[in-house]
C-alpha cells in the first residue's frame, strides 16, 4: 500500500537521478573530446550538445562553457545541478519511504554540487568533479538497491530510472544514426568511441565486438542487446517487469494498462533485428520507442496516480 503522490515522487526521483547521471557523462565525454583539436573531437561535442537538445552550430563551440552550464547552471532546468536538486526535493517529499542510507548518499551529493565551492572545483578539475558525481550516483543506486525493500517504493523508483534511460539512449542514437542514408552519419572512429562512452558502453561493447567500432554494431548493441543495462531492450524489459509487478496489485478494469503497452514495446524490440534497422534506417524504430514511452508514462499516471475517484470508491 502506498500513497499515489508518493509513487509519483519516487518515479520522478528515479527519472531525475538517471538524467543527472546521463548529463554528467555527456559533459565528461564532451570535455574529453575537445582535448584533441581534431574534426572528430568537434563532432563528438556536437553529438553531445544535440543529445541534450542544445542547437550546436558547429562553429567555435566553446565546449568548456557549454559543459559548465550543462553541469552547474541552476537557471537551466535541464542541468545536472537542477536535476539533482529536483531528485533531492522528491526524495525529501518521500523521506519516510526511502532508507537513511540511500537518502544520505543523495543529500551528500546535493550538498556537494550546490556548495559555493562547486564552481571552483569544476574549474580546477572538471573530469574529477564529474567522475565523482557519477560515482556518487552509483553509490546512491547501490545503497537503494541493498537497503530498500524491493517492494512498491523501490519499483516505482526503478521504473523512473528505466523510463528515463530508454528515452535518453533513444535520443542519443537518434542524433547519431537516425538520419536518412543521404545525410552524413557518424562514422569517424573517435566520434563513435565517444558515443559509446556517452552510453557508458565502451567496455561492455568491446567484450562483445572487440575493437571493431562499427555504427551497425553500436546500434545493435545499444538497441537490442539483451544483457547490457543501458540498451533500449534491456530498459524496456525492466519497465515491463516492474509495471507487471505493480499492476498485479491494482484491481484491473477493462483498461489497456501501462503494463500491456510496455509488454508490446518489449516484444517489438525482442523480435526486431539490426538488418531491419539498416534497411529503413534507425529513425522509425527510435521514434516508436520515444512515442511509446510517452504513452506508457501517461498510462502510469492514469492507473496509479491520477485515476478518477468514482472508479475506486469502496463498495
Amino acid at each position: 500500500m502506498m500513497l499515489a503522490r508518493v509513487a509519483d515522487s519516487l518515479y520522478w526521483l528515479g527519472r531525475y537521478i538517471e538524467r543527472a547521471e546521463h548529463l554528467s557523462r555527456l559533459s565528461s565525454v564532451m570535455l574529453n573530446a575537445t582535448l584533441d583539436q581534431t574534426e572528430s573531437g568537434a563532432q563528438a561535442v556536437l553529438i553531445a550538445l544535440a543529445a541534450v537538445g542544445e542547437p550546436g552550430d558547429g562553429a567555435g563551440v566553446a565546449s568548456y562553457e557549454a559543459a559548465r552550464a550543462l553541469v552547474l547552471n541552476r537557471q537551466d532546468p535541464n542541468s545536472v545541478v537542477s536535476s539533482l536538486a529536483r531528485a533531492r526535493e522528491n526524495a525529501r517529499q518521500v523521506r519516510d519511504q526511502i532508507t537513511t542510507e540511500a537518502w544520505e548518499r543523495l543529500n551528500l551529493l546535493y550538498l556537494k554540487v550546490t556548495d559555493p565551492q562547486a564552481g571552483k572545483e569544476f574549474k580546477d578539475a572538471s573530469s574529477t568533479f564529474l567522475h565523482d558525481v557519477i560515482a556518487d550516483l552509483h553509490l546512491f543506486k547501490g545503497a537503494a538497491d541493498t537497503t530498500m525493500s524491493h517492494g512498491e517504493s523501490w519499483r516505482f523508483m526503478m521504473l523512473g530510472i528505466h523510463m528515463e534511460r530508454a528515452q535518453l539512449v533513444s535520443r542519443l542514437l537518434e542524433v547519431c544514426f537516425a538520419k536518412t542514408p543521404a545525410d552524413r552519419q557518424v562514422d569517424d572512429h573517435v566520434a563513435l568511441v565517444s558515443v559509446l562512452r556517452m552510453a557508458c558502453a565502451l567496455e561492455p561493447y568491446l567484450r562483445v565486438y572487440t575493437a571493431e567500432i562499427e555504427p551497425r554494431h553500436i546500434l545493435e548493441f545499444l538497441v537490442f542487446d539483451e544483457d547490457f543495462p543501458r540498451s533500449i531492450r534491456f530498459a524496456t524489459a525492466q519497465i515491463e517487469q516492474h509495471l507487471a509487478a505493480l499492476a498485479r496489485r491494482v484491481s484491473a478494469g477493462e483498461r489497456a494498462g501501462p503494463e500491456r503497452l510496455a509488454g508490446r514495446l518489449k516484444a517489438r524490440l525482442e523480435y526486431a533485428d539490426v538488418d531491419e534497422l539498416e534497411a529503413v534506417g534507425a529513425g522509425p524504430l527510435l521514434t516508436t520507442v520515444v512515442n511509446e514511452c510517452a504513452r506508457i508514462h501517461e498510462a502510469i499516471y492514469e492507473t496509479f496516480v491520477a485515476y478518477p475517484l468514482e472508479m475506486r470508491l469502496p463498495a
Partner: protein
Amino acid sequence: MAAKTQTLEGAPTLPMTEAAYLPGVAYDEMFTPQGDVRRHYDPLHARMSTLGAEELAGRQRTLERSFLLQGITFTVYGAENTTERIIPTDLFPRIIPAAEWSKIEAGLTQRLQALNLFLADIYGDQQILMDGVVPRELVLGAPSYRREMQHLYVPHKAYANVCGSDLIRQQNGEFAVLEDNLRVPSGVSYMLANRDAAKRTFPGTYRAAGVRPVERYPDLLLSTLKSMAAGWRAEPQVVVLTPGVYNSAYYEHAYLARLMGVPLVEGRDLVVHENMVHMRTTTGLRRVDVIYRRVDDDFIDPLTFRRDSSLGAAGLFNAYRAGNVVICNAPGTGVADDKAVYAYVPDIIRYYLDQDPILPNIETFLCREPRQLQHVLGNLDKYVVKAVGASGGYGMLVGPHASQKERDDFAKAIKADPENYIAQPTIQLSTAPCLIDGRIEPRHVDLRPFILSGEKTIVTPGALTRVALKRGSLVVNSSQGGGSKDTWVLAEENGHAHGNGVGQGSARS
C-alpha cells in the same frame, strides 16, 4: 599519543576555558554558586577536562556534519531569503538527576491530566465556568476556542495527545512551567537526533552515567494514537498529516512517520466520502482511522475552518464529528495553552484533581484586569510582555533589554488591546556549559519534555533542552537564533557519579 599538556597544566576547574566560565547570577546546571561541580555532572566534567580544544571542535564538526547529512534541518523564514539550516546543536548534554526528574514527571502528568479534564469540561457542560473559577469570556472569547468541538466525544477525554511543555529552572533551582504547548508541539525529533549524536560523541560517559533511554518515543506515540481508535477498530490505520515539504518542521513529520512506519500524508492525499476519510493509494482508496495532524486547527478542513486552506481535507471535520476518524490533537486544544488561561492553570489543577500543583507557574499579570494593567504599564522595564495569541518568540517585549522607545511603543499597543497581553517578571533561565567558538561558556537553557496522553499518560524520560546561543540572551526559540542539546535523565540518584567509567549499562529503566 602525547597529551595536550597545555590544557591540563594548572588544572583549574575547566582547564581549556582558563577559568573563564562565569555562570553569573542564574542557577548553573553544572556548578554550584561556590564553584563546585554538582555531583551528577562529575563524569561529564571529568571527560570535558581531558579533551583539548581541538578535539572538542572536531567532535562538534562531526556532529554538525552528521545533522546536515541526515537532512535534520529547518526552514528559516523572513530575512532576505528562506533557507534551510541545521538547528545549532551543542555537544555537551544537559544532565538531570533522578529525583528532580521524578518531580517533573509527576508535575507534568498532573498538569496534562488537569488540562485534558478542563478541555473536556469547557467543550462539555462548562462546570468550571459556571463555578466562576475561570472567567467565562476568557475561554469562550479566545480565538483558539472552537465552538464546533462542543459536545463532541473524545476517547479517554484525551484532547491533547501530544504535549510539549516548556519548563525553566529558576534561580532557586526549582523548575517552573513557562508555557504549555497543546496544539502541535514540535522538537521531539531533535530530542531523538541529539541523543543519537550524544551517544556517538561521549559513548563512555553515556554508558557510565546510567541514562534513561528516549528511543521508545515513536512506538509509544504510535500506541497512544492507536489507543484513540481502539474502541471501534481492531487495527486502526494511523497517518501523519503534514502541511508539506515547505513547512519548517517537515523533517520531524517525515521522521516520525518513518519511525512509526505509517504513511506521511498531505491534505491532497485525503478524500472524504460519506463521512469516511480515505487516502489515495496506488491501488485505490484506503480507509484512515487516526490522523496525527501537524497542521494547525485553522487549516484542517476548509469546509469547517479557514476556507482558503489547501492543507487539510474538505469534510474532515464532519467525519470526525461522525466518529469515523480521530484527529490528534483534537481541534480546539489551543484554548488551554492560551497565555491568559495559563495564569489559571494552578486553579484548574485544584478544581479538577483537588491537589496542589506539583510544578509552579511563573507569576503572571493579566492586562485584561485594570489593576494589573496599571501595574504592568508602570513597571514595563521589569517585565516580559507577551501577546496572548503569538508564539515562537514573536510579538514580545523584554522590558529590561528594550529601549525607552520600544517600551513606549509597546505600551501603546497594550493600551489599545489590553486583553491581548500578559506580563511576567524577567526570569533568569538557568545556564549550562556550551561550546561556543571553541570555548566552554555558560548559556541560558530551558527544558521541553514531551508528554503523551491517550489511554495512559506517559512522560518520556528525556527532553529537548533549548539553548539561547547569544551571550546573556534569554530567547531560546530556534527561529530567533536558539540551539539545542541532548538531555540526560539519570536512572538513579547519583548512580554512577563516582564510578570512573565502569562499563555497566543503565541500572534500571
